């Protein structure tokens, strides 16, 4: 190793050569190369974490760039994992970067997580978060949890005992995931770029503290950070017990993490070409579930507007069309609406949700 590269942290009192060696030996898996993952990856790579794995199956889009700072305008359309790995390798040629351009699911996560010592969760949905939590609990891997909502962030370390408390996990806070649509995500709710920058960087700091055994990492604690007030509030986590955590691989594989690829969900996710086909049928109703203030405004002759805030009332009404296509900005609320309609009608109607929403098929909507 080049001592020169890490000189400024090696000479730091309270860090030093021994801590640097621990970083170089460590294997860290960063799940999600997005708003949280990008800054976390940059600092972990620069600090000299010896092996860094990156998991993400997504490609870079223009609306990522205000917060996903490893990517440039020229990278739009490319795989996040590829661009991030190349960039990080250029930043630090002395470490190993491992690419995992896949979506983690029950059948692949245990294999990947078992190859690493520390897991950093920077994903953007509850399905992944519960999947990762349970896999880390099963394999006894320290989990650095980072998440954002609005102007606030949450940061915690799970599956790591301290001198007071045996290890806790995410289910000790929230035993089961919220219902779809209950907590809006960044794509739905918006996010200011610097917030995941701060929380992702703090997650890297916690990872480094944990590996180098310095300071007091947020073990069995959850920190709430508020960007607007610069206030932090730390809460001690204790064991909850009113939840099921898979104790064996078989139990894990039998859990339901609501992967869209598994289980009979009833409704169908479609793309714009299927939308066009369905649109030609007399017995199809196209429903825009966005709120009235949202743009672009769609032609109300074609798209019936039923905002999610009024969807409960709509569920009590009847309509004749047999095919129901639900549309929203990113294809997330439309899934919640599809689930509600599916529950009401079962096989009596065919329910569809436009995957990726208006943003993904912008050209289609601007044309029509």
């Amino acid at each position, binding site marked *: 190793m080049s001592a020169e590269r890490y000189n400024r942290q090696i000479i730091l009192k309270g860090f030093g050569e021994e801590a640097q060696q621990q970083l170089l030996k460590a294997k860290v898996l960063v799940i*999600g190369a997005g708003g949280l993952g990008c800054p976390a990856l940059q600092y972990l790579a620069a600090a000299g974490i010896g092996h860094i794995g990156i998991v993400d199956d997504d490609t870079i889009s223009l609306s990522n760039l205000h917060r996903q700072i490893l990517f440039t305008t020229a990278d739009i359309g490319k795989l996040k994992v590829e661009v991030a790995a190349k960039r990080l390798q250029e930043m630090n040629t002395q470490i190993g970067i491992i690419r995992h351009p896949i979506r983690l699911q029950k059948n692949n996560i245990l294999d990947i997580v078992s190859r690493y010592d520390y897991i950093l969760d920077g994903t*953007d949905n509850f399905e992944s978060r519960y999947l990762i939590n349970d896999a880390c609990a099963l394999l006894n891997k320290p989990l650095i949890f980072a*998440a954002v*909502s*609005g102007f606030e962030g949450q940061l915690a370390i799970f599956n790591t005992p301290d001198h007071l408390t045996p290890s806790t996990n995410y289910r000790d*806070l929230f035993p089961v995931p919220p219902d779809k649509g209950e*907590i809006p995500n960044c794509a739905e709710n918006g996010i200011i770029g610097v917030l995941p920058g701060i929380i992702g960087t703090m997650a890297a700091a916690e990872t480094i503290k944990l590996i180098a055994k310095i300071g007091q990492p947020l073990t069995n604690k959850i920190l*709430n950070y508020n960007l607007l007030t610069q206030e932090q509030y730390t*809460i*001690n986590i204790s064991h909850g017990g009113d939840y099921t955590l898979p104790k064996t691989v078989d139990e894990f594989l039998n859990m339901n993490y609501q992967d869209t690829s598994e289980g009979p969900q009833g409704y169908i996710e479609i793309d714009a070409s299927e939308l066009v086909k369905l649109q030609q049928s007399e017995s199809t109703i196209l429903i825009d579930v966005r709120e009235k203030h949202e743009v672009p405004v769609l032609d109300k002759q074609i798209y019936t507007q039923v905002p999610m805030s009024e969807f409960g009332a709509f569920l009590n009404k009847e309509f004749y069309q047999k095919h129901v296509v639900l549309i929203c900005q990113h294809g997330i609320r439309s899934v919640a609406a599809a689930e509600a309609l599916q529950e009401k009608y079962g096989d009596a109607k065919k329910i569809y949700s436009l995957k990726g929403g208006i943003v993904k098929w912008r050209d289609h909507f601007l044309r029509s």
Partner: protein
Amino acid sequence: MEIEIISFGKISELISNQKIDFDGIADTDNFKLHLEHQFPALKSMKYKLALNKNIVQENTQIINKATIAIMPPFSGG
């Protein structure tokens, strides 16, 4: 009895940070009932309480000047 309420995320849109005088609320189960009565939207939301910075895992007695935080799950990244 005075209780300070601190709320996070989406819940702070419903319940702002405030100090309130509560009478007849002796424990966290009671507090939760009172809260969900006053803010019915909470009933359908996932959240966790923390009493004086400790997560509430079972019914716990509340003493005067307590701080109760109300925290929803975040998933954004």
